[in-house]
C-alpha cells in the first residue's frame, strides 16, 4: 500500500511537470494565431454613383470593378478565384496574368484554371450618398443596385 501510493504520487508529480511542459508548447504555438488584426474592414465606401462612367471601372484600393449600366450598379471582385492575382478588364472579358484564367463580362469562367466565377459583392448607397460595398457579402449574378434616377 505504502509503495503504491508513492508510485502514484511519483507519477502524478512527473506527469504534471510533463503536462505543464506540453501545455507551454501549446501556448507558444497558440501565440502565432493573432487575436487582433489590423486589417481593413470588409465594408467600405467608394465614390458617388454619378462619378462612375458607364461600363467597367477598376478600383485599385479594394481590387474590384464597379460596373455601371445606365443607373444600375454592380460590383465584381478583381481577385482571381484561382490563386488570388488581380484580373484585368480587357473590354469584353477579364483575364488573369498569373495562370491565364479568363472570365466573361459577368465573371463566369471561360477558360483557364479558375475553379469558380468572380464573386459579386453587395452594393448599396450610404447615407452620405456614396456607393457602399460589403465584400463579405456576395450576391447572385445579375443583382444590381439601382440609384434613384435623379441622382444618376
Amino acid at each position, binding site marked *: 500500500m505504502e509503495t503504491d501510493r508513492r508510485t502514484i504520487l511519483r507519477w502524478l508529480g512527473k506527469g504534471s511537470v510533463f503536462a505543464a511542459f506540453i501545455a507551454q508548447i501549446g501556448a507558444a504555438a497558440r501565440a502565432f494565431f493573432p487575436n487582433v488584426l489590423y486589417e481593413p474592414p470588409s465594408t467600405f465606401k467608394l465614390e458617388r454613383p454619378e462619378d462612375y462612367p458607364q461600363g467597367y471601372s477598376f478600383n485599385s484600393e479594394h481590387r474590384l470593378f464597379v460596373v455601371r449600366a445606365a443607373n444600375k450598379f454592380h460590383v465584381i471582385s478583381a481577385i482571381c478565384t484561382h*490563386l488570388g492575382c488581380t484580373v484585368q478588364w480587357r473590354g469584353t472579358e477579364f483575364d488573369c496574368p*498569373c495562370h491565364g484564367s479568363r472570365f466573361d463580362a459577368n465573371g463566369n469562367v471561360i477558360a483557364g*484554371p479558375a475553379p469558380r466565377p468572380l464573386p459579386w459583392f453587395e452594393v448599396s448607397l450610404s447615407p452620405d450618398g456614396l456607393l457602399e460595398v460589403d465584400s463579405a457579402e456576395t450576391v447572385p449574378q445579375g443583382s444590381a443596385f439601382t440609384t434613384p434616377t435623379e441622382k444618376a
Partner: protein
Amino acid sequence: MATSVQRWWHKLVWPWSPLSEREASEAIVRNLWLHWFPAKVSGRSMSWSYSLWLGTVAASLFVILTVTGVMLMFFYVPSTERAYGSIKDLQYAVSFGRILRNQHRWAAEGMVALVFIHMARVFFTGAYRGARVLNWLVGVALLLLTLMLSFTGYLLPWDQLAYWAITVGTNIASEAPVLGPTFKYLLLGGHFVGQQTLLRFYVLHVFFLPAVVWILFAYHMWRVRKDGGLAAIEPLRAMRRAEPKEMPRSKSYSLFGLTPGTSVAVMSSMGLEERDQVASSPNLTRRMILVFLVVFNITLLLSLLVNAPLEGPANPSVTPNPAKAPWYFVWLQELVASTTVHLGKVTISGGLVGGILVPGVLLAALILWPFFDRSTVSAEGVWFARERTRQNVVFAVITVAIIILIIVGMYLRGPYWRLYWPWSPRPVLPRVL
C-alpha cells in the same frame, strides 16, 4: 614570434602533435576542425568521378549563403515600408553591397540546382541502399528545406515578385484539405499579406530554416561516416569481405553504431585494408578547400557580371503581366495553371492538384523509392548499373518533364500566361486596369 603564435594556436585547437602514422590518425580525431573527418578515407570515396563532389559543392554554397546572409542582415530592414528601399540601398548606396546581394542570390539559385543534381547523382549511382536509406531521407528533408529557404528568401525584397509569390504561394497552401485555411492564416499572420507576413518569413529565412539545415547537414555528414564512407566503396568492400580473414568482433561497440549488423571496429576500418585508404588530412581536406574556393570564385565572378533581379516595389492592386515564379518554381506554376479538373459538377482547383497533390506524390515517391528498390548489392555505388536501368529511366523521364515545364514557363509564356514562340512578338498591352 611566429612560432609562439603557432604554439598558442595549437594549444587552442590541437593539443597533440603526431610522431608516427598512428599518431597522425589520432591527431586528426583530436583536432577541432579535423575531427569532422574520419582519420582515413578510401580513394574511391574521395574520387572526383564518383561523387563529382556535388554534395560538397552544395555545402560550399550553403556556407557562402550563411556568411553573405548574415552580412545582408546588417542592411536589410524587415518592414513592408522599408524592405524594398533597403535592397535598393544595397544595390546603389552601400559600397560593394550589390556584389554581396548578387552573391547571396546566385549562391541560392546555385544551391537549389546543385542539391537537386547531387540527389540525381546519388540516385544514378544507387547510393541510397542498405543503411544509407536513412541518409537519403535526411537528404530529402534537406532538399525541401533548400526550396523553403529559396521561397522565403526571394520574398524579402518586397518587390512585385515577392508580393505575388506570397499571394499565390499561401493561396496554394490554403487549398490543402481541412487545415489549408488555418495554415494560410498562420503563414500570413492574418487574412492578408502584410507586415506580419513579412516578419514571419524573415524569421524563418534568417534563423529557423538555416538552423535546421545546419543541424541536418551535420547529421548528413555524420551518417556518411557511420555508413563507412560513400557507397562507392561497396564493391571493394564486398571483395575484401570475400577474402578470408579474421574480422574483429566487438559487441561493446555496437552501442555506437546505428547501423545494424556491423560493429564499429569494422566500420572504422570500413571493411577495407590499409592499402585501400589514405589519410584524410591532407588528401580529403585539400580537395575540400579546393572545391570551396572554386565554388566561391564562380559565384563571385557571376556576381560581378550579373545583377540579381529586383522588380518594382510591391503593388497589391496590380499583378505583373505575366507574373512569373523563379525558374525553379515555374514548373509548379505550369502545373497549377493546367491541372484544374472538372468532374461533372465538382471542380478541383489546379491549386490543389498541381500545387499540392502532384508535388506530394513526387515527394512520396522520393521518400518511398529506396524501400521498393529490389536491385542487388552489385548495383550499389556504381554509375548507371545495368540492373537499375529501368529505375534510372523513370527518374530521368520525370526530371526531363520538369525541365520541359520550366522551359515552357520561362520562355514560351507571355502576357496573360498565353503561349508564344520565343521569337514571336509579344503584344504590347496598354495598362488596362
